[in-house]
């Protein structure tokens, strides 16, 4: 569509240029009559050009499509069949060995695992692998074969919130929300090991998770409140 609009604009410009040269030679009334057919021919030309372009594009696209699989088949090893559980549900899939666990999970639809830095610095992709918190970007997808993955949705869902999630909502622990899935998984991992952490211990516990809104105080408040609530239950 965008290409068609551009073509129209071009044709209008051309016709207006012709108009200017015509003005000098012929009377105004005649030009107005001439305007209409000129525009039409210009449009037709543009349409023809478009058709040619499309045909060329189709040809090149076909070439690309036919050559791409051959190239990848010669350079990429075959995908490996792997299976693991995500939040208790079994997942069976084929994966290239070089795909990170982060990409694999996101491609499978688990987009609650966020892609922040892909270098293990930010903690947005924090998940639990067999109960241990880790960065999904720092493992290959195939390394998770046979293991149990927990994402933030495995800790609590919208209908059935975990106390950590409740307190994050209640106390403003969420600002833009991008760090929240990783932050909550890290908090869960912390509270699993240390159910009653001090504020200092909470700070250390979430030190691998960055919040770009810098709302750390409220995040720490939320985790502290969640720990208190979980202890009182």
């Amino acid at each position, binding site marked *: 569509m965008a290409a068609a609009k551009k073509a129209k604009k071009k044709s209008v410009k051309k016709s207006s240029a012709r108009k200017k040269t015509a003005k000098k030679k012929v009377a105004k009334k005649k030009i107005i009559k001439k305007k209409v057919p000129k525009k039409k021919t210009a449009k037709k030309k543009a349409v023809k050009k478009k058709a040619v372009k499309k045909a060329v594009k189709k040809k090149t696209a076909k070439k690309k499509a036919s050559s791409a699989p051959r190239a990848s088949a010669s350079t*990429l*090893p075959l995908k490996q069949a792997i299976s693991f559980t995500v939040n208790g549900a079994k997942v069976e899939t084929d994966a*290239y060995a070089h795909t990170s666990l982060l990409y694999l999970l996101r491609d499978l639809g688990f987009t609650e695992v966020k892609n922040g830095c892909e270098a293990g610095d930010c903690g947005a992709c924090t998940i639990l692998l067999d109960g241990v*918190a880790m960065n999904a970007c720092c493992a290959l997808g*195939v*390394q998770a074969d046979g293991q149990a993955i927990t994402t933030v949705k495995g800790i609590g869902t919208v209908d059935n919130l975990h106390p950590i999630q409740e307190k994050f909502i209640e106390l403003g622990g969420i600002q833009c929300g991008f760090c929240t899935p990783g932050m909550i998984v890290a908090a869960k991992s*912390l509270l699993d090991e240390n159910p009653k952490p001090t504020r200092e211990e909470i700070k250390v516990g979430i030190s691998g998770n960055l919040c770009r809104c810098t709302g750390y105080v409220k995040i720490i408040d939320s985790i502290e409140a969640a720990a208190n609530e979980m202890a009182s239950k």
Partner: protein
Amino acid sequence: MRGFDFVAPSTVQAAIKAAKGKKYKFIAGGTNFMPDLRHDHTGETKLVIDLMRIKSLKGISSAKGTIKLGGLTTATDLINSKIIAQEAPILTAMAAKFAGPIIRNRATVSGNIIDGGPAADMVPPLLALKASVKLTGPKGNRTVTLDKFLTGYRKTDIKPGEIITEVTFPAPGKGHLHGYYKLARRNAMAITVVGAAVILKMKGSTCQEAGIALGSVSPTPVRCLEAEKLLKGKEITLALAQEAAEACATIATPIDDIRASAEYRKLMCEVLPRRLICQAAGISIDPS
């Protein structure tokens, strides 16, 4: 980056066999490998061998005055280990400053050593403890001292097909003193500007044996042999600590980078060992 094959053997021998004749890479926690992979456009690696499923590479043990760390010992394992807390608390102190808690769950001792980086945080305390690495390869086992194993910037004395199966060090014994400091721009997830580790085996106020190492100030973390000699068999005083600290600074060959200038690093190579020696020995740093 292009694709590669992947295997996850369950024994050391199977891993060595898998590597034979291939352009392979052993990986463990992946905390160095994965970020590097993003910038690797060579496609040189054709096979990645995951060591994380080899159970014999895990665990910390102590026998006959020697502490053994399995190659897959993570920083979290070091923090949680009672053996380490009793026998070599310097490693507990180091692990608490190592990256962040999530990375600590995956990052391994063998990976930190084999990466060969100058800022490898696990290395200076292990150098101060006079650790050795035990390697298993196609030609059998061999043991190399850690300072000899690190040969240059991201270079180690590893032979094709070899795996670091164990890191061992003599227990410095009860009553030894230690000091560790990681100078960095942040409290967590930081790359070290200068790392310093000090181990002092004492008899009364006399130092029987010392181990001092610095990180991030030369192509590899280094042991300060001259300073260790200076302290050996002497009573530790502020003047002696100063002398040893100056000896430490002479072997440092730091560079400028985005974290700090070479000049600052060089200065800290004197300040940190002096401070750590004095703090460990209970000497007031204030000369008055």
